[in-house]
Structure formats: C-alpha cells, structure tokens
C-alpha cells in the first residue's frame, strides 16, 4: 500500500468538522509521512523495525543524516508525532479537535512528504545513507 493514500483519507475526514474527525486527521497525517520516510530509509538499505521501535529509529537515523533538509523534515515529523499522541490519547486536549489545526497537520504532512520525495533518486539516497552510516560508525565506536 502507498502510505500517501492516508492523505486522501485525511482529506475526506476534513469534509466534516467534528472533534473525532479532526483527531483522526492528525493520526493519518502523521502515519502518511512516517511511512513514506520508512520507505525512503528502506530504499537506502536500512532495516526499519515494523513496530513502535521504528519511530525512534527513524528519528535517530534521519536526525543524524547530515543533510539539513532531511534533518528539518525529521524535526517536523517529530513535532507532528507529538500532536498525534495528543490526538490519540489526550481526550481532554481541545486543540487537536479544531478543524483548522487538523487541516494544518495534513498540510504539514504533505510538505514533509514533498521533502522526502526529493531524496528518492539513487544519488540522493546514497548521500543520505553515507551520512547515517557515518553516524552509526561514530555511535558504535563510542559504545
């Protein structure tokens, strides 16, 4: 399945302005961008856990890849994840029930995916993989 299809679901949910829809838009927006990132990293040769552990792994890899655009995309993804946690677990939190904030989350996800999509060529993936592998070497030599 193409994770970008979650964006369409999020768009469909925005046809109705109600708290449950808005919260779900945050969730689908995050997972669309997250899974596009997973595909990018897997395409560059990295094994990404298909479990909750994968979220931290994606942050660590992308946040240390040495390519500023991707490091900024990681930070935006982490911010979106923080809002996704509020939307999914904090039922007292009203901000994630507002239509405009859900719409912003969807737009942010689209922007993040656009950045990831600009790194899908083999040459860009090689640069990213080199940055991540350099980081992993540093980590391994320090431990």
């Amino acid at each position, binding site marked *: 399945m193409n994770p970008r299809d979650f964006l369409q679901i999020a768009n469909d949910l925005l046809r109705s302005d109600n708290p449950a829809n808005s919260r779900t838009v945050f969730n689908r927006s995050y997972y669309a961008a997250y899974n596009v990132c997973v595909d990018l990293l897997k395409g560059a040769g990295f094994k990404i856990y298909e479990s909750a552990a994968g979220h931290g792994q994606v*942050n*660590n890899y992308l946040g240390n890849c040495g390519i500023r655009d991707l490091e900024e995309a990681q930070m935006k993804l982490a911010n979106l994840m923080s809002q996704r946690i509020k939307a999914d677990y904090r039922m007292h939190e009203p901000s994630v029930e507002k239509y405009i904030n859900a719409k*912003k989350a969807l737009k942010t996800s689209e922007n993040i995916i656009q950045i990831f999509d600009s790194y899908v060529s083999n040459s860009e993936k090689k640069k990213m993989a080199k940055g991540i592998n350099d980081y992993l070497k540093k980590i391994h030599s320090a431990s």
Partner: protein
Amino acid sequence: MGGGQGFNNALNCSSILNAYSNKIELIGYPDERWNMPRLVFIDGDESDPNNYGMNHRLIQYLAFAEDLIRKHFPSVDRISSSIEYNPETNDKWVSIDVEVTGDMNQVIEWEGSFVKEWVASVPYPERNKIRLSCDII
C-alpha cells in the same frame, strides 16, 4: 505511569527551568534494539538496567526555544509547556505548546522558519527532546 495527565501540568515557559529542573536532566544509554544511544528523563525509566548517567544539557535549550518562538511567531498569544509521554514506546519529551493567531499557510511558514533555526542551532538528540506543538486559535 498512567498516560499523559500526570505529566501535563501546563506551565508558563518562564517557569520551566524551576519547575522541571529536577526532572528533565537527561541520561543516555545504548538501546539494545538498535544499539544506539537514547535519552530518557531521569525520573522516567528508573528500572532500566542499561541506564547510566550523563547530563545532556537540555535546560539551556528550553530558554532558547522560547526566544526562537517569540522571534518566529509574531502573533504568539500564549506559550506553555508540558512533559509529553508516548504510551506506545515510553519515550518522553518536552512539548512546547504555542497558541497563535493567523492564516494557516502563514503559520506553517513560521513553523518552517522556527524549525530551520532550531535544527541549525541545537544538536541532536537534545533538539528531538523538545517539540513544538503550534495551535491556531
């Protein structure tokens, strides 16, 4: 630890340093799942045998984050913070919650400029332990 309510004591950003000074010092330990360093709050996972102490200087970055928010979000109405917690992974971070007024695309642009300067200025993993949650009011 039961969800986020215990951690979600919203505070004025100016009081973050005092309020959380005994909670947000970070320590690192190799995570066996992928053999990489990982940071936790010192009061977070005390039973983890892999923990070993190392301060990663998070506190100074909270004040910097507030300065950056005021620089990049001209219509900021309120800044507060809470310690957020992911019940799926047990990870914690400081969520800086910003309320702004303005057009959605403009706010997204402000967020982009904030993230750009944040990433350029704050090292990983500290920057990943402070996350922006920007709400349009």
